[in-house]
């Protein structure tokens, strides 16, 4: 069953590498957007509804449909795939940031402000560290789902493990499909385990 992996390890490794890059770049960009939006949503209840609503709606758009729409605007290639992945990750990441910040013990914030930390120092030195386990939970869920979603990037010439799946389907080569699926599943599991480890480490 895993014949393709044994016969073409270099090709699988190269596609796996592309896949990892797609996911990591998308996750990094997504976090840069989600952190400020999450802080905004946690601080201003009036903005929470539109922010969570819009990202929630994006999340419900079928991924193939979103990709097709983006291709019409941005063309084929990895950039388009990354834009789609970033958009999908927003809801999970922002919810993590909002839940994390809202869950911070109010006494910590009262003590911090009372001791003379500025609002910014309180956010960076007290609230974020206290919210970090919950925020990282969101990052983990986002990472695992991006690994799965990134397989369809191959459909718009963005590479990754999806290439094996689409090639396998087109040429009726089940060994290729199995190799691609196994590699993607393994990547998702490893991402989950690593990020769980990070979560535990920051909780201590």
């Amino acid at each position, binding site marked *: 069953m895993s014949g393709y992996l044994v016969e073409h390890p270099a090709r699988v490794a190269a596609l796996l590498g592309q896949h990892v890059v797609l996911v990591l770049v998308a996750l990094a960009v997504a976090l840069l957007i989600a952190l400020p939006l999450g802080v905004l949503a946690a601080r201003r209840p009036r903005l929470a509804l539109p922010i969570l609503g819009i990202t929630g709606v994006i999340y419900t758009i079928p991924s193939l449909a979103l990709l097709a729409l983006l291709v019409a605007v941005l063309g084929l290639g990895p950039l388009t795939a990354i834009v789609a992945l970033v958009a999908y990750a927003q809801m999970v990441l922002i919810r993590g940031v909002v839940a994390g910040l809202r869950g911070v*013990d109010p*006494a*910590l914030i*009262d*003590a*911090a*402000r*009372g*001791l*003379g*930390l*500025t609002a910014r*120092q309180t956010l960076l*030195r*007290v609230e974020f*560290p*206290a919210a970090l386990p919950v925020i990282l939970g969101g990052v983990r869920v986002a990472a695992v789902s991006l690994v799965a979603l990134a397989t369809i990037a191959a459909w718009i010439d963005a590479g990754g493990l999806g290439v094996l799946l689409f090639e396998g389907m087109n040429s009726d080569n089940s060994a290729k499909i199995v190799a691609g699926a196994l590699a993607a599943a393994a990547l998702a599991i490893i991402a989950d385990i690593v990020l769980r480890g990070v979560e535990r480490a920051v909780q201590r």
Partner: protein
Amino acid sequence: MASSQATDSAERAHGARVELRDVGVRYTNATVAAVRDVSLTIAPGELTVLLGPSGCGKSTLLRTINRLVEPTSGTVLIDGADVRARDADALRREIGYVIQAVGLFPHFTVAQNVAVVPRLLGWDDARVAARVDELLTLVRLDPARYRARRPRELSGGEAQRVGVARALAARPHLLLMDEPFAAVDAIVRASLQAEIARVHRELGTTIVFVTHDVDEALRLADRIVVMNAGAVVQAGAPDAILQRPADAFVRALVGVDGETRRLALERPLIER
């Protein structure tokens, strides 16, 4: 305030003088004012207890002193200067603040928690380290044993000792304490009260202490300010409050056993 000379062992400082002039607080959307036209002068070095039932406005009043709450009317002066003229964060770094929930930062060690304000004020490492040990000793926690611990490794009483040390770190001339010992058991509370009385005696810091516990107020206060429904009902020495309660509310608060309590007061705290 935090003098640049590193003579940290010369502990005793003058206490700040606090004046509240017609202070009123009305929260937005609230139908009644939380604090109504309170005027109060707290003498340097005095330990004043704000005493009253929950919701009487005593915490709100306390929080106007370090600008965690901005009065909707009236003025708060510290050593004659309007607190509104100061940057709120800079002001708070000069005022100690202790709360019931302690609020130690869980991701910091005990030493890092105590060092928060000195760090904000830019003290160097050696001075901070020396000050941390000095403060832990002051609140009777062995620095060698406690310095590197995390807040979750402390008992409730130990945590509040660290909370007090953190509040005193930058030698404030004023210490605000909001129900600081309400969450610990009676035995620990008594020992923490004795520590605060000792620290107050040793340092001469002005302390404003909020509690709903009459016995605690009687034990600690130089002066008790009884509050009800946002207003001051009576202010005076513990003995005067017990002997001459101003009205039925104060009489009910100190209870029918006022005389027993007055006798208990005559036993000095140090001997407990």
